[in-house]
Structure formats: structure tokens, C-alpha cells
């Protein structure tokens, strides 16, 4: 009997499950006094950190500032990192904390989000209208999710984290992270409805 799973296209996706944390060696080198190891960590994770922060902070430059602040905190705290989580999820946790703290401090300065579908009027190209429309619908639908489901879905889909890492960041068990992910997808399909179903 041929396994159905063998034919599923998603099985070809590279797995997120890593037997060992690929950044752990860098963290240990840093603890041993190798300053350059931190630069490698920055190079590896700055893009992911910025994208994560940018979902909270609505200006690009502010997102860069918050990312920088998160790395400064990570630099000070990496010596105490004990490897109970992956370095990546530890960094992302710092980034989320910095972003939330920044939002609290700059609550009134946040720009109102410009609806992407409102921009379509300035850009009549049909192909672009379709892409932007889809993007806007998706973002609106994601914004309507309960906070925990939204966090889990975004970490999984946009940040490409394993369920274990998602669980570490969402501060829940791996099973709870999977259940939240399932409900988020289910709800998203309900929100998008038949008209916007793929």
C-alpha cells in the first residue's frame, strides 16, 4: 500500500523541526568571550526580528529602532541564556516585549493604517488590483482574529517558526499552539467566506 502522505506536496517543504538549536553554538561562543559570535546572530536574525516588530510598529524607521533596541537587550542578556528555548524564540520574545513596550510609550503617535484597498483607486492595473485586494482581505481577516490565535498564526505562517517555538513565544503548550493554529485557520476561512475563498 502506498502512503498518501508520500504524495502530498507539503511534505516536500523543508522541515522546521531541528534536532538541535543551530544558534546555540553561537550563544556558547559569545558566553566564552567571542564578541563576533553576536554579530553572526544579528546577521542571521535581524530580518526576522524586523518583520516581526514591523507587524506591531507601523513605521519602518520605528521598527528599525525597536529591532536595534531588542538586539541591545539580547546582547546584555545573552550571557544568562541557558538554552531552555531556542535562541531564535528567545530573541523574538525580546523583540515582542520591546515592540509592546514601544507601543505603550508611543500610543498616540501610531499612524492609522492606510487600507490597502483604498490605494487601489490610484492604481488601476488589473493584476495589481487583484493581488492587493487579496492581500488586503487577508490582512483584515487576520486582524479580526482573537489575539492568541492571531499571534500563533502569524508566528507560524509569517515567521516560519516550529510549533515548539510558537508555543514558547505564545507561552502555552505545543498542543495548545496547534489547537490555536487550527482555530485561527478555521476562523479565517469563515471570515473570508465563499466570495474570497481561494
Amino acid at each position, binding site marked *: 500500500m502506498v502512503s498518501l502522505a508520500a504524495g502530498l506536496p*507539503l*511534505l516536500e517543504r523543508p522541515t522546521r523541526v531541528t534536532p538541535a538549536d543551530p544558534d546555540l553554538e553561537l550563544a556558547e561562543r559569545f558566553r566564552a568571550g567571542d564578541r563576533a559570535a553576536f554579530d553572526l546572530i544579528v546577521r542571521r536574525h535581524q530580518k526576522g526580528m524586523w518583520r516581526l516588530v514591523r507587524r506591531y510598529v507601523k513605521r519602518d524607521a520605528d521598527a528599525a529602532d525597536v529591532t536595534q533596541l531588542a538586539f541591545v537587550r539580547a546582547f546584555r542578556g545573552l550571557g544568562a541564556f541557558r538554552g531552555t528555548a531556542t535562541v531564535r524564540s528567545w530573541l523574538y520574545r525580546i523583540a515582542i516585549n520591546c515592540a509592546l513596550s514601544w507601543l505603550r510609550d508611543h500610543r498616540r503617535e501610531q499612524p492609522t493604517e492606510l487600507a490597502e484597498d483604498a490605494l487601489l483607486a490610484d492604481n488601476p492595473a488589473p493584476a495589481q488590483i487583484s493581488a492587493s485586494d487579496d492581500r488586503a482581505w487577508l490582512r483584515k481577516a487576520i486582524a479580526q482574529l482573537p489575539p492568541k490565535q492571531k499571534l500563533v498564526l502569524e508566528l507560524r505562517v509569517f515567521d516560519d517558526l516550529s510549533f*515548539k517555538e510558537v508555543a514558547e513565544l505564545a507561552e502555552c503548550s505545543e498542543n495548545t499552539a496547534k489547537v490555536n493554529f487550527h482555530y485561527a485557520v478555521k476562523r479565517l476561512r469563515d471570515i473570508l467566506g465563499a466570495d474570497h475563498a481561494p
Partner: protein
Amino acid sequence: MRRDPTEHDRAALGSLDTAYVDGVAELSPDERRAIEARLAADPAVRAEHAAVRRLLARMRAVPPEGSEPDWSALERSIREAVGDELPRPWWRRWTWMAPLATAVAAAVVLLVVWGRPAPSPVRRGLPVLERPAPAAELTDDDSIALWLDGAEVDVDPIAAEALVEPADSDDDVTDVGLLPATDLAWVDNLDDEALDRAEHWLAGKKKG
């Protein structure tokens, strides 16, 4: 008998399905086998998986928000912000020691002040002469034990009181006992005859 799946069962099954679609390697072999058996048996499950897969692919195609910065510039700014020096471990930083040292010093002072025993009243005189308990009224029939020269001698407490300077007579130099308790040099000046008389008196007291 087969029981109907509860909401909890459905959530567990659904979460496994969604997790399977999005990352089969993160499931245990048993979970994987169970889902593959359902996929093989039920076309509705296959359709559901396909729909979830398309939605996730569509979401992943959404570009990140904002315009990405110059990554080299961001990396440089981070490097400048953190500096070249490795951070000291917390136990090697001196800043935390100041409040700790202050707290320890304060605790020591408090211990010294509060832990000191209450000052006892100044008792001058022969240390062996303990004053009788104040509650007990002395009478002529009472006696206290006095150890002299290795032998116990019963001494009339009223007479013993008279031998010792009163404790509260520090300033009253005129009110002294019969024997000056602070200066016992006179004992050294007693001649043999006087000592013999004293011993004789003590022996008489022992017998009596």
C-alpha cells in the same frame, strides 16, 4: 459501543489535521499514521486538507509589511549601539553591591544595638555574695551559703548585707559597708594572729 466525538475530540482531531497540512514532520509517527488512514478513507478529509493548504499558501505569498530597511545599515547601527565590550555577568558588576553592602551594614548595626543584653545593675562587692530574692523577706533565722577557702560557711544574710556596700551608693561615699568591697588590700595586711582569729571564728561558725 462507539461514542460520538465531543467538541474536545473534534478540536484535537482538527488541530492534528491542520498541523499535518502545515508540517507533517512535527507530528508523532502515531499521529501521522492516524491522519493518513483518515485521508485514505475519507474524500471529505482530503478536500478539507487541500483547502487549508491553499489558504496557507496564499497567506505565505503575502509580502511582509512595510519597506524593508538597508540590512547592512541596520547591522552596523546595532553593532554601534551594543559596542565592542562584552557585557559583564551580573555577579561581576559592582552596581548591585552598593545597596547590598548598605543593607548588610544596617543589619549588623541593628543586631549590635538590639542584640546586646540589657545592662545588669552595677554590683560591687564580693561576687559570691548574691543578694537574696527581693520577694523573700529576710529574717534572723535565714542563712546563705558562703564559700571561703574551699569550705561552705552559712552566713547570716542580714550580717552579709552589712558587709557589702549598697549597690546604689555609688555617689554616697559616707554610706559604706563594714568591709570595703572595692579595696581588699587590707586583707594582705592582716598579721598571722588576726588570720588565726578569723579562722578560729570561721571554724566556730561551721560547728555552730
